[in-house]
């Protein structure tokens, strides 16, 4: 029984479901088994989004709380909200931009406060400038793929998914595939430089 449970989180419209679809297709290309549980409908209108990605010897769709191995998140608030799904010490790759919930008169925590709070619980937080770097690469909607690139280099993802399979999955499943492949590579490079520095 070997499995990898990935929690994807963010705000409706950020490309979380597309990211899940790329990962799922990359697992298929790599010859593995995958289950992706999504949220649709009412919950997608700018609301909080969680997608459960389960790889390996798995049957059921949902990751139980405290069982996730890894999180990729496009919003720090949502990363903190869904950290209950993670095992102690899990890696969390999170974008540095907070999308404030548009509710009148609410207090928004800062990125530092969120990171500190998660680190205190023993999570390994890697803050990734995914949105900013994707914009720089001329692909503002490619933040999800930059995040995948950054996490691929340094996490257990490598044990389950081949890099060529990700490239192939991007090519087959995303619009502007070449631009997204470029963003994936930049994400990988960003992580390499961060690791060696």
């Amino acid at each position, binding site marked *: *029984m070997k499995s990898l449970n990935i929690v994807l989180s963010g*705000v*409706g419209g950020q490309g979380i479901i597309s990211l*899940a679809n790329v990962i*799922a*297709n990359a697992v*298929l290309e790599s010859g593995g*088994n*995958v*289950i*992706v*549980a*999504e*949220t*649709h*409908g*009412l*919950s*997608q*209108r*700018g*609301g*909080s989004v969680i997608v459960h990605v389960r790889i390996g*010897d*798995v*049957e*059921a*769709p*949902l990751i*139980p*709380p*405290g*069982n996730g191995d890894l999180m990729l998140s496009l919003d720090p*608030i*949502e990363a*903190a*909200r869904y*950290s*209950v799904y*993670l*095992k*102690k010490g899990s890696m969390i790759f999170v974008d540095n931009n907070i999308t*404030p*919930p*548009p*509710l*009148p*008169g609410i*207090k*928004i*925590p800062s990125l530092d*406060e*969120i990171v500190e*709070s*998660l680190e*205190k*619980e*023993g*999570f390994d937080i890697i803050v990734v400038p995914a949105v900013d770097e994707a914009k720089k690469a001329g692909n*503002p909607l490619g933040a999800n793929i930059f995040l995948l690139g950054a996490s691929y280099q340094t996490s257990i993802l490598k044990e389950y998914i081949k890099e060529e399979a990700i490239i192939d999955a991007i090519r087959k499943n995303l619009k502007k595939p070449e631009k997204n492949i470029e963003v994936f590579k930049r994400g990988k490079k960003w992580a390499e430089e961060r690791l060696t520095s």
Partner: protein
Amino acid sequence: MAHREVLAEPGSRVVMLGNVAFARGALEYGVSFASAYPGTPSTEITEALSYASRILGGPYVEWSANEKVALEAAIGAALTGIPALASMKHVGVNVAADPLFSSAYMGVEGALVIVSADDPGMWSSQNEQDNRWYGIHAYIPVVEPAGPQEAKTAIIEAFKLSEKWKHPVILRTTTRVSHTRVIVEAGEIDIAKIKRKGTFVKNPEKYTLVPVHARRLREELVEKWEKISKDLSQNQVLNHAEGNPDSETLVVAIGLGYRYAKEILATHGLLDNVRLLKLSAPVPLPKSLLLNEAEGREKIIFIEEGDPVIETLSKALFYDHDIRAKIYGKGTGHLKKTGELELHRVEKLLAKALGLEKTYYNQSVIKPEIKLPPRPPVLCPGCPYRAVFYALRRAVGKARIRPIYNGDIGCYSLGVNPPFQMQDTIVEMGGSIGLANGMAHAQDDKVPIAIIGDSTFFHAGLPGLANAVYNRSPMLVVVLDNRTTAMTGHQPHPGIGVTARGVEGTELSIVDAAKGLGVEYVKVIDAFNIAEGEKEFYEAIEYVKKERKPALIVAKGACILLALAAGRRVGVYPVAYRVNDDKCTACGLCYKAFNCPAIYSKDDGKAYINELLCTGCGECAQICPFDAFEPVDEVPPEWLRLMREAKPS
């Protein structure tokens, strides 16, 4: 959405959403007619079939006006001898319940599968409803796939069952089956089959349910029900037992429950120790199979999504046959009845029943101390409904009425949240006008305001409106016409003039419909024009107060997401707005009272627009008392036209 993978090459393995796998299975079986009304979590089945139909030239696919019509149409098609599919969400079956019950008496000629997509956990629904009860109540067999992994096979089996017994079959799916992606192997599609047409052969003794016929058919139905139960006991594809035949424990795993049971038993190394009965066709209860498997066991555990339906039926059966095993399930309080199944909850049940000491899925949960703001879904930046709510609230203030807002099902349900809080009741599709009828007559001097969307108006608003005219119910009906069924992902409806097959349909006018029903005061306003809205709502409220009759206003403006998509297709883009800092007084009206998600407050309280989120609707420029909002460039007239007229492709 297209869901192109529904037409994957035969023999290929592809990642597919459960709902797309249902569509693929229906095509592989040879479905020739498919009707539906959109509703989460069922919508993608028909979206995928709609795509397939456009490419392959078949089957016939339609978005029907509502679920009742969708089912009636599918019954009609099935009576001509072809296989038909009607898809809807769980509460849609309530709307279709009348023909559903009759269909069991009549039976079908071709095949008829009714998809009921239940939503335990209420991710996008007003209730948690287990529609397997409908199967029992209406004498219609229920097929319930063991997870998305079995979606394609299960719908093919459901069609075969229907064809074999000439009887409708309910396929019950749930959110985690419909909206979960898994790897599916594509089979062959016979294009001639999906394009075929039927012929109706008259048989009034069967198809006209007058009492003299219905009494005979009722006898036949009850007899057929027992035969189908025997058949399901033999159906090895859907129902079978595995594991240790001599175990003292039987785990009865129904539908998706099988996946939870199997994963947990495998993790604990118990797959060969206990007996696992997988039921993917649980209604009518496969009695002989269940009795066979239950005989002599000490413990019987039931794992099912929703109510303890099969547990309850089984316990009655066990009582009749003197089986006295210890039962564990939702009915005995060992598993929570509300919400969705989850691995840790099912593991807890199994641990208790089997006396397991170690648990794998019940891990200690870490909760960071930081206080997080909630993030409920909101009206999108540029949503025409925000402008309408704003204008309506101002009109209501001016007319000095204490309003009651009878809300309805759609994106405008989000008006329940601050800052608007303009949905006092939300019951079901069409309930806005219906409840307003009662509110209008049960209270003195009130003007209930019914708020209903365009698709919902055609779905179930028309009878309520007829009633309001007939009984002279003083109410204001506001029809929010955003040119699509938006919440479920932009399907067309009768007011659009585009069909599911992409061919032209007839565009119905909401104004003509209202006038035709006898509403004397009918007006159309530009949903994006706040001043016009305020004036027209005010005058309509005054009319209702004076005349004590219904008035109706259509607020027309396209869903901004639809306008953006239409713009991308023709290369027309909106121009974002920005804040002129010299003019902004930090009053906060735009980000508090109007609450556009693209507008934030800066540290000094002045407004700031996130240009990435701004859709260039220009609503903020209309509400700002200080003219602080301005477009960053000249706004293309073509964009302003698309905002008003875009429609689904």
